[in-house]
């Protein structure tokens, strides 16, 4: 006897999409993926500094988030749940792979900023400036502890609120604020360099 599956409504909420996914709608997962692949990738990339590793973390995160929905139980938004899983997967992956210290292939290495400037002399100045700033930011982030870095990345790249970060990291809002306070202190030099650019 064939099973009838109710159509998933257009413009469905995350909760509706999860219900549709549980009912067997393949397109529901497609839509959830389309909605959150970008913040998930940004969080993973910022924690790992490597595109291939970041994609692995995103894949692992989506799979774990969808196959461990019993741990989610709707206590937070799906985005919060997903970014929690993705960021944890990224940190695990970073530890397993010896942490590539957030050095991306397109970012200049230590002491190479000047040569990168020469190599990119024929490129657009804006692109060079972005690469330099990206490198400075990655260096500044590398000075943070793991939890401070995860907290800041969920705030800056995941665009989560204090409360959502607290839910994602299973801690108090006060602790989130404390971590962001320390992160801000350490990243202020980056801000001041940015002002000097």
């Amino acid at each position: 006897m064939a099973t009838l599956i109710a159509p998933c409504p257009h413009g469905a909420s995350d909760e509706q999409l999860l219900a549709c996914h549980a009912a067997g709608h393949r397109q529901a997962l497609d839509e959830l993926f389309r909605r959150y692949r970008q913040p998930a990738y940004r969080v993973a990339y910022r924690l790992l500094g490597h595109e291939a590793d970041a994609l692995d973390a995103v894949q692992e995160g989506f799979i774990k988030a969808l196959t461990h929905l019993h741990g989610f139980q709707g206590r937070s938004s799906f985005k919060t749940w997903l970014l929690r899983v993705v960021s944890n997967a990224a940190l695990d992956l970073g530890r397993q792979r010896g942490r590539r210290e957030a050095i991306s292939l397109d970012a200049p290495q230590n002491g190479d900023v000047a040569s990168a400037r020469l190599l990119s002399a024929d490129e657009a100045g804006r692109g060079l400036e972005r690469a330099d700033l990206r490198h400075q930011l990655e260096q500044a982030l590398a000075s943070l502890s793991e939890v401070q870095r995860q907290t800041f990345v969920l705030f800056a790249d995941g665009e989560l609120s204090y409360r959502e970060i607290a839910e994602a990291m299973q801690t108090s809002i006060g602790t989130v604020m404390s971590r962001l306070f320390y992160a801000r202190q350490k990243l202020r030099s980056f801000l001041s360099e940015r002002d000097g650019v």
Partner: protein
Amino acid sequence: MSHDRDTTEEHPGADDERGADLLRLRSLCRSVFPPEPDEAAWQTLLARVHASVDGPAGRGRSSRPLWGIVGLTAAAVILASLLTRSLWKTSVPVPAPTPAPRAEEPFPVAEADDVTIISMDARDVAALVVGEPPVSGTLVFARPEDIRVIRCERCPHSGRFARLEPGEEVPMFVSAAAVELPDDGPQK
């Protein structure tokens, strides 16, 4: 749940320097983000997710089935070793697991209600700030009945004792008195 965020969370401390710095850092992070993978890479990734979530392995299965086999094998080995050990009654000391080093964890921010000052050294008074500076409200002075002198000791520098004078119009007035008192002077 973006709909229930309050304004202060959406723009945390937007009026103060800290909130402004954080929001600037957030916008800078957006501006210096590297190019994202192309659509083909995303579709490949999505196909892998589908294969793990919807595939023949079924929902709820791990994306790495080999781990399950490895885990079962490890569990079997551990069980066998435990059984063997109990049969042979050997007493090989098992080293205690070394606790993993904890990541640097800043102290949570304490709220005003979380702090109760029970006692403090008088020399630290200058370092104590109560409330949220700068003080914008009305300063409320202590009244005579708010003060209870439990112990009074001789000043280690001047050798003098303090003297409490309640006064009539002035709420309280404490001054150092140049009065020579016995060595065991007023203690209570």
